């Protein structure tokens, strides 16, 4: 196989920066390979991908030394628009890249710009619609599609110009896991069935690493490590669950799929078996109740998003809400907070008496229930971290410096004069958390907090959330978080509620809910099924100690 992309001695310096972000990079991509690009946030993944079609430095500015050759064309002499027929680029947010308003027009747009004849365009549009499985969406308005559908349309629109190379920069970071699964499955099809060369930057490695041929790891010091995924993942600072397992087990290479890992682990008869509850509602309840929901209902026109839901939540527990999109998780959270209309009763034990946060004014409601929405950065509007903190103190009516103190108690150090917009997703989330916690709420609601976070940030978030529940930032609070991320839920939460069509269909300890079925469980649990092993901590406790030493 010949190399379609060659980077030789490439150094990239951002405009205004004195030192290069990436230094003396030498990389090649063989034709037909799926190359994964991994690295912590801010190490230059996007910059590296931008060089592949000349967006860096033609569009972004800055300085590029060395040569980048793509399909025989030097990006020094070819502008991005002249590479449009050999490289297709898909970004994080599909909506931001849409030029037209309907699916069909969007797919045709790129071809129109290349001056392809109308009859050929018509044929290609039909082919692409079938390839990406979006033929039934052809006349839909782009804004009416779900996130996963939008991202697939964006890929289709790029593919219509028939490039042989596809560059995807975190295409799933703005999507929920179900939609992400759709998109990643489409990408794997393109590699295996169509034979495209794909370069993919991705956070959710566990979903795609089994299909990867090569891996570029950006350690953050300006270099890029190229190698086979099973070797590079064994030492990279990006640690998907299987890599963590392989380190715990002391394996030299990382198995890339659950199937391979199960084979390597082999039968382990001595391990305790996972509980198989005979009932779906097993949460014992009791204890220090802080939130009571009684026949809570949320309607949107004809749609019943939350249907007569009744439950209680205790102080100090971290509860995870799971369920597919539209099962009512977000609606439930917004209803508890009082931002959407709802029926039934919501009671919060605030300062010793039960009150309804929906009837309280916004400032009091904030002291009872605090919500961090999916797009957390919507809450930030001031130019510096210091001003945001000061404003939050005022809003919560607490002494100046409280928010700042919470930030440092969360062990997140943010420079005072930094603009929140320039910070990473994880830093922004931490700031919003601190702002929302400054009111010392009794109940903290987090809606999809792990979206766009890398593995290290998720570990950090787990620590922060456990701290909130334990009372590190005030009184112990009840934390209710909605997530699709089973891995995160397994390591973070005590209790899991599964929702479907507005009802609770399962309610129990995370361990019993997540390990009882192999389909709906974290990767480690899948590897050790049917044993009661769910996290790396379990692996270290049970697997790495001989049976005789265990108590």
């Amino acid at each position: 196989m010949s190399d379609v992309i060659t980077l030789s001695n490439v150094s990239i310096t951002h405009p205004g920066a004195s030192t290069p972000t990436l230094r003396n990079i030498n990389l090649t991509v063989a034709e037909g390979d799926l190359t994964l690009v991994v690295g912590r946030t801010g190490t230059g993944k996007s910059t590296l991908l931008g060089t592949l079609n000349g967006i860096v430095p033609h569009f972004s500015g800055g300085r590029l030394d060395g040569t980048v050759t793509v399909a025989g064309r030097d990006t020094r002499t070819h502008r991005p628009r002249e590479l449009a027929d050999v490289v297709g680029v898909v970004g994080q947010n599909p909506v931001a890249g849409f030029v037209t308003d309907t699916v069909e027009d969007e797919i045709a747009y790129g071809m129109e710009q290349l001056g392809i004849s109308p009859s050929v365009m018509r044929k290609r549009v039909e082919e692409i619609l079938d390839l990406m499985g979006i033929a039934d969406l052809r006349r839909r308005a782009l804004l009416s599609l779900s996130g996963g559908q939008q991202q697939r349309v964006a890929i289709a629109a790029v593919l219509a110009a028939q490039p042989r190379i596809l560059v995807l920069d975190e295409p799933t970071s703005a999507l929920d896991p179900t939609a992400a699964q759709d998109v990643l499955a489409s990408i794997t099809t393109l590699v295996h069935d169509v034979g495209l060369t794909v370069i993919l930057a991705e956070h959710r490695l566990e979903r795609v690493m089994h299909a990867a041929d090569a891996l570029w790891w950006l350690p953050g010091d300006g270099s890029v490590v190229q190698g086979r995924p099973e070797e590079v993942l064994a030492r990279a600072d990006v640690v998907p669950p299987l890599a963590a397992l392989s380190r715990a087990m002391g394996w030299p290479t990382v198995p890339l799929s659950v199937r391979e890992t199960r084979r390597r682990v082999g039968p382990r008869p001595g391990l305790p078996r996972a509980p198989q509850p005979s009932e779906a509602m097993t949460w014992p309840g009791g204890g220090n109740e802080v939130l009571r929901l009684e026949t809570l209902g949320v309607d949107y026109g004809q749609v019943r998003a939350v249907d007569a839901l009744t439950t209680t939540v205790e102080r100090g527990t971290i509860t995870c809400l799971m369920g597919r999109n539209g099962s009512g998780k977000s609606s439930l959270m917004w209803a508890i907070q009082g931002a959407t209309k709802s029926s039934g009763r919501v009671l919060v034990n605030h300062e010793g008496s039960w009150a309804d946060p929906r009837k309280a004014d916004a400032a009091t409601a904030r002291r009872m229930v605090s919500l961090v929405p999916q797009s957390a950065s919507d809450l930030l509007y001031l130019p510096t971290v210091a001003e945001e903190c000061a404003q939050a103190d005022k809003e919560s009516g607490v002494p100046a410096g409280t928010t700042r103190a919470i930030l440092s108690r969360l062990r997140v150090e943010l420079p005072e004069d930094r603009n929140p917009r320039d910070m990473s997703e994880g830093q922004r989330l931490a700031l919003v958390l601190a702002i929302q916690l400054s009111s010392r709420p009794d109940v903290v609601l987090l809606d999809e907090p792990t979206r766009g976070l890398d593995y290290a940030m998720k570990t950090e978030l787990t620590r922060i959330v456990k701290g909130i529940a334990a009372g590190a930032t005030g009184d112990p609070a009840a934390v209710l978080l909605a997530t699709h991320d089973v891995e995160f839920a397994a390591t973070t939460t005590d209790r899991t509620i599964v929702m479907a069509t507005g009802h609770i269909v399962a309610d129990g300890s995370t361990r019993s809910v997540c390990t009882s079925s192999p389909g709906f469980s974290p990767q480690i649990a899948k590897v050790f099924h049917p044993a009661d092993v769910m996290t790396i901590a379990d692996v270290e406790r049970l697997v790495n100690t001989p049976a005789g030493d265990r108590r």
Partner: protein
Amino acid sequence: MSRLVTRTANPVVGIPVAATPSSTRTVHPWSWWAWAAGCGIAISLTNNPLLVVLITAAVTLVVAVRRTDEPWARSARVYTGMAFTVIIIRVFFQILMGGDGKGTVLFRLPEASLPNWAAGICLGGPVTAEGLAATGYDALRLAGMLACLGAANSLANPRRVLKSVPAALHDISVAVVIALSVFPQLIASAQRVRRARRLRGNTRKGIRALGAVLVPVLEDSVEMSMSLARGMESRGYGRTRDDRRVRPGTRVLLVVSVMALTLGCYGVLANPTGSFSTDPSTCAPGSLCSWLLMDRMGQHIGAVLIVAGIIGSVVGLRISGRRLGVSRYRPDPWTWQATASCLCGAVAIVAMIWLSRANPKAITVSTSPVVWPPLEPAMLLLVVAAVFPGVFTPAPQRSTQADPEQAASWTSRQDEVPQL
């Protein structure tokens, strides 16, 4: 199961096949604009309320029969509302402060004079039939023209209209299309931010609260434009641009042609009596108007200028369109129905001009004294011309029939679930 498949008695039936392989089964958007413009101009030439109501009713009928279920088709309701508002406002002000008391007094309102600093405007007073009729007819005419504009808007998809512009205007149409699609996104992000405000306790009020909403929304929109530009660049926008294929002087030709067109329109339309029986003496002596209208030559000069301007613009646009090698995906075909719709608009104008010459009293109804507006059999021709496109154009594919999912998505967006 029987191995013999039962056959239908007569399996060959004549299925009405569409004359052209049109994708959307709609007429070319520009033909709707031509038809609506024709009807609008015809309305503007008369003040006969019965005729105005008849033509407006015909136009409304066509809209009701031929509009699709898509969002822009809902604009018809907005324009109807605007038309009624115009009538109400004009009649209200006529009653409140219009009366000079000459003519048949219908009733009197209590009178009040405003002080001198308010220019001594007189409120109330006698309300005359003549004044009411003149204002009412005028308001009705304006409302009728608004209805025609609304008809064009709701029948022709604005995006398709913009897509069918000459290649030379491609860049402008792209800019407008993008602006159209960014707008709903801005509204969505404003709503999201406003909801998020409640989460922070909403302590900011007034101007400061406005800033709290505006800053994130503006930052969103700037980021969105940057990534859109980046996306367009990587998808080859502007790749086929080649300025060498345009002859020098094309720009000059275009500018001169457009000036000729403007001047020509002024010559033909700036005509004070509202009909085509011009009286140049109504113009102030020495003004541009009197120069152009001298001996009825104004309209002749205007017509010549318009024709020259149109030819020059077409040639100029053709030449400058060559520098773009952009092709078009499924362009709207120009069908005979489109030509016929344009013709209907033209017939409406010509019939109105002919009527205004043949029977000026029926077209420009006297309001002093107030007479019952006359109707003539020839006016039927106008109404038929206005309503005819509703008969011969193909029925639109209502999205409920074509794509139930799409229809559902539009209705559901009205009460969007706050799961962003």
